[in-house]
């Protein structure tokens, strides 16, 4: 644990970082907010660990993922403190809220868009043959900037397709709900994401987590059966949790294809549009038939006179 004010001097980069506060800690290290002295005190995030190989391994993955999608954290540099330990890498500091916090001030259209954005990010990760695995609210950030972009953090769980998932959170784990195996594949991430969005509105009761698999499944299905077609993401959530949607790309397409029926106002608009269409159609047939009649009459007059 580093105290605020601790200075880390990079042995290789010669850059200096001043620790401000701890942002979180995980299975292999801690993340701090820090300033980069040489770069006009720019704010950055530091991942710090006493194990050099953990840092090296994550750095390699982070660089790979950043090229897949801008939704993943962008890496800056990897280095060691000149005094030996700790080892660290530097990444961009994301100023954002976790999805559940952000959701309090966001409407359904925004949440639908974010759902799609997370799906797209996962889709580009899947193209590289990796699953994110540890999809949970803490790892899904929404930027505070006006665009409120979707970002994914903590790549500690990222696993190649086909391997066993090594880092997960039971609440958002496919296996825990009896919805499939704990092998890393595209659908594993989709189920995690669907559960996060489902539980935003309907968190599972605390005692349910201790109860046997059958009652967990029963509760989940009862929640699913109560979902309405609006907002748009709901039909995709159900599709994922019923294993009908197994790839992120399909999920994105389904989300875009599902009709916007979020308010009754929208429904009224489409009805009145239909009425107007009906009237123009009648007008068209009237014009066509009267034109035909006029032409016929003209021919009759012409033939009679000749």
């Amino acid at each position: 644990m580093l105290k605020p004010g601790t200075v880390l001097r990079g042995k290789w980069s010669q850059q200096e970082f001043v620790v401000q506060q701890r942002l979180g800690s995980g299975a292999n290290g801690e993340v701090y907010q820090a300033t980069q002295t040489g770069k006009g005190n720019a704010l950055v995030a530091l991942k710090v660990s006493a194990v050099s190989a953990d840092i090296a391994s994550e750095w390699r993955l982070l660089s790979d993922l950043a090229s897949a999608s801008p939704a993943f954290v962008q890496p800056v540099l990897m280095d060691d403190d000149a005094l030996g330990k700790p080892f660290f890498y530097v990444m961009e500091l994301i100023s954002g809220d976790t999805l559940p916090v952000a959701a309090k001030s966001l409407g359904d259209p925004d949440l639908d868009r974010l759902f799609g954005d997370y799906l797209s990010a996962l889709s580009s990760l899947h193209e590289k043959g990796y699953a994110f695995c540890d999809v949970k609210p803490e790892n899904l950030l929404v930027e505070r900037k006006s665009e409120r972009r979707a970002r994914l953090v903590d790549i500690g769980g990222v696993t190649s397709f086909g391997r066993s998932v090594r880092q997960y959170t039971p609440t958002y784990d496919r296996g825990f709900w009896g919805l499939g195996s704990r092998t890393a594949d595209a659908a594993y991430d989709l189920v995690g994401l669907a559960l996060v969005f489902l539980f935003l509105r309907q968190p599972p009761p605390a005692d349910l987590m201790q109860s046997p698999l059958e009652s967990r499944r029963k509760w989940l299905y009862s929640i699913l059966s109560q979902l309405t077609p609006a907002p748009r993401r709901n039909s995709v959530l159900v599709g994922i949790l019923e294993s009908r949607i197994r790839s992120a790309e399909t999920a994105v397409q389904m989300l875009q294809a599902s009709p916007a029926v979020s308010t009754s106002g929208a429904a009224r608009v489409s009805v009145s549009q239909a009425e107007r269409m009906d009237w123009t159609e009648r007008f068209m047939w009237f014009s066509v038939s009267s034109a035909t009649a006029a032409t016929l009459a003209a021919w009759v007059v012409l033939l009679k006179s000749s």
Partner: protein
Amino acid sequence: MLRSEARLRQILLITDGCSNIGENPVDVAVEAFRKGISVNVIGVVDGGDMGRAGRQEALSIADAGGGMCRIVEPHNVAATAQMMTHQTMQLTLQQAVSQELQSVLGKTTEELPPEERARVSQVVDKLQEELTLELVVLVDTSASMKHKMAMVREAIQDLSLSLSARLGDSQVAVVCFPSRHDGMAETIQPFTSKVDESALKRCYVASGGTPTGPALRTALTLLQQRPNEDDGARLASL
């Protein structure tokens, strides 16, 4: 050095209290670690705390056994067991690779520049997936574990399933203590690549003491009795 590490060997102890019968579990953990076997400990608590003595002992065993220690609620046992097993495999390999580099280059991994280090880590990740893993799960079945056993059984089943997705062979054995027969430790599942659900049902909760030390000894013996298959050839190509 790597030759003797060709198999990864671990003990996972799942308990909720302090030992009170037989030799000191910390001593057995020290011995295990000296033989290249890591010992991880999961303390299972239900709402409350483990008690200071239990928590202290759990930490000391993991510390002496070169492993990790986590105190968790029953429904988190499965996730924790998997995280620990993978983390410990990685740590063991990192140490082995670092020692190997030391003897070849006269440098530890930590002295390599960042970019080269990332390449070494790639080798470690690959080995971690491919090497044979032998794991003994030690389950405390003393009376206080009674209402936590369903979750623990599920966790072991889960762990075995998850390990079977590795590329390398994973062998898991399960030992319960205290045994219903002699109050010490009982192997209810010998080494297997897939833990049998019905075998786990034999993990009865029994009254009696908590012989954590003797149970660790049983696990140690089980691991040492394994025939020494020669994985060395594959590793030599490193």
